[in-house]
């Protein structure tokens, strides 16, 4: 465990139990998942039982206990995107990346997830890769989008 890296996060908090979620969010953003040793240290420092951390980490969708891929592909399955072909987009991405929803491709390049409304419904169907939005994505646009990230 890289103690300094974790310390940089923990030092910004008071160390109270109510700091748990923000601390986990920072670890998730920073590491891409919640590593075991770091989580144990958080439990000790915030004085929260490990079971509570586990319950929080599995309740909220943003947390992952396993490392994610280099690129996060998120397909919106909000109502509008559902109506305008979001599910077909998921099928296409899943088959092209060779990965099921919720998993990471074998080469560690892509994680595929579905999300409930990205708030850009007027451009449905919408998907994101990392921080970039893609609007009105029809299935034939998928290869071009993936190419931007395939090294």
């Amino acid at each position, binding site marked *: 465990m890289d103690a300094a890296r974790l310390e940089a996060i923990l030092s910004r908090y008071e160390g109270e*139990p*109510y*700091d*748990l*979620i*923000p601390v*986990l*969010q920072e670890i998730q953003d920073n590491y891409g998942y919640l590593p075991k040793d770091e989580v144990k240290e958080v439990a000790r420092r915030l004085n*929260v039982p490990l079971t*509570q951390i586990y*319950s*929080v980490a599995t*309740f*909220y*969708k*943003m*947390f992952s206990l396993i490392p994610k891929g280099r690129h996060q592909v998120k397909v919106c*399955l*909000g*109502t*509008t995107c*559902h*109506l305008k*072909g979001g599910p*077909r987009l998921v*099928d*296409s991405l*899943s*088959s092209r990346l060779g990965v099921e929803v919720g998993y990471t491709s074998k080469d560690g390049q892509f994680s595929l997830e579905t*999300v*409930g*409304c*990205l*708030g*850009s*419904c*007027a*451009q*449905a169907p*919408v998907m994101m890769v990392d*921080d970039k*939005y*893609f*609007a009105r994505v*029809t*299935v*034939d646009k998928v290869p071009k989008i993936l190419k931007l990230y395939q090294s």
Partner: protein
Amino acid sequence: MPKFESIDHLNEYRRQLRARRDPSQPQVLVCAGPGCLPLGSEEVAQAFRAQLEEKGLSAQVALKTSGCHGLCARGVRVLLRPQEITYQKVTPADVPEIVETTLVGGGVVERLLHEEPETHALCRHKGDIPFYRSQQAIVLRKLDVIDPESLDDYLALGGYRSLRKAFFEMTPDEVIEAVERSGLRGRGGGGFPTGRKWRICRDTGEPIKFVICNGDEGDPGAFMDRAVMEGDPHAVIEGMIIGAYAIGARRGYIYVRHEYPLAVKRLQLAIQQAREAGFLGKNILRSGFDFDIQISQGSGAFVCGEETALIASIEGHIGEPMPRPPYPAVSGLFGQPTIINNVETWANVPEIINMGPEWFAAIGTEGSKGTKIFSLVGAVHHSGLVEVPMGTTLRQIVFDIGGGIPGGRAFKAVQTGGPSGGCIPAEFLDLPVDYDSLQQVGSIMGSGGLIVMDETSCMVDVARYFIGFLYEESCGKCTPCREGLKQLKKIYEDITYGRGEEKHLTLMEDLCAVMASASICGLGQSAVNPVLSTLKYFRHEYEAHIRDKKCPALVCRPLLKYTIDPETCTGCLACVRECPVGAISGLKKEAQEIDQELCIKCGLCYEVCQFDAVRRE
């Protein structure tokens, strides 16, 4: 930005700010709202920056990226002031022409003007576009004309004037009374009278109280709160400061959902600016009143939009709702009295204080005052954000503002209220939209998502979708919601797989009755609305699935059959490349065939075929 030590200081600064601003200075406002951003707002703004630089106009022309301009369907939108010309579908390639023709030459680039779908009339100004004509903007008023990262822009338009008025001309009681008299009701879905909530909280007399802004916006299809947080963050903050003053809270939280990183960034900046200017922090404007706000980010859980779950989440727990009473106004965050209001509710408060409760109460209907923002999406020409007086009819919203249904297709339903709402059929198009009338037809206002559906949507599929969504999102604490959703989901699966039986329909109604009366929170109680409303108004579609094993709208996958018409197929192999299960085969340049045994009916071949050779029935 100075730290304002008194009202005089603030007034003087505002006066100078206005004097410095030349109303005839050319301004370019590029929309970077939720709709335009994914279409490339940043690239368009960048192109303007480069072009203005090149022409030596950077100093004369004020270039800004603003919040949502409303008509997202035709983004990226650009507003040019003072001429008030609006351009649509702008790409970086259009920018040199706009600069040359409009900014330098004073003319208009006609091909970038809005064109009405039916009449083909060209509209030069915002006010000429029918989409905007019947709207009344209170909360969205400033979105297209200010830079949300500039406190000066907010102040120039009268920002923090209401805070000054509340603090120095009104007692906390008078503020509450004004909100009560305005008739403002919560915009987060429930429609509880805001002033009454504040009064209950103040009357507890507890020394420690909190205010919370609910920016969780979990309803899929709704993005008005995102647009307000990103486009006019100071309005939300000003509303919260006034609310804190009214109930006597020292601390506030804005709970923003995980999926809205830009909203977090804008709010963080605005809070920082408000602190530096002395609108937040100790002894605000030397009034003796202390108040500060912090942001709490969601972690991806729909149920956390429910107020008691949201509070649990801020406290560091999983988002499980608590039975009410006690209501948060009496016992909320850390067990203290807490008022929690929605983003749009908070953003209405400064206007009510500024313009007076009578002004606000004159807008809307008997039981629902003011305006409501809707995100109008789905099968309409003009999807986007619309703000209309309460009581505007669905027909006006969908047809006059939304421009009707594209492709000459027929209107089928409008879905309101997200997963807790219902589907409203054509016979109620003349229904005035307010809290009470929507409830009467089996739906709810919800946060304001309006999803228009045409004949290509299957209402059984829509209800199945919402039940699937809620099943995933139910926290599992109470049995009626957890098990009820599971059973409903299973029944929907049966129906859409052609295994449905007549008795399923009554079984669903029975399940709904239990869930509605016995679930702990609104998630389970209102989860029945998508089911009951579709069963009531679109029963024939259920019957077609059950009796004829057919999906009339051709949506429910297991009931479909895909074939390739050998006459039309060119053998381009686009479908072969797309098919995830290798079910399509044939020689190159010859007609292809689908192996029905292997076909999983995903419809990818149908979507990629450019020759309409794939048949779906």
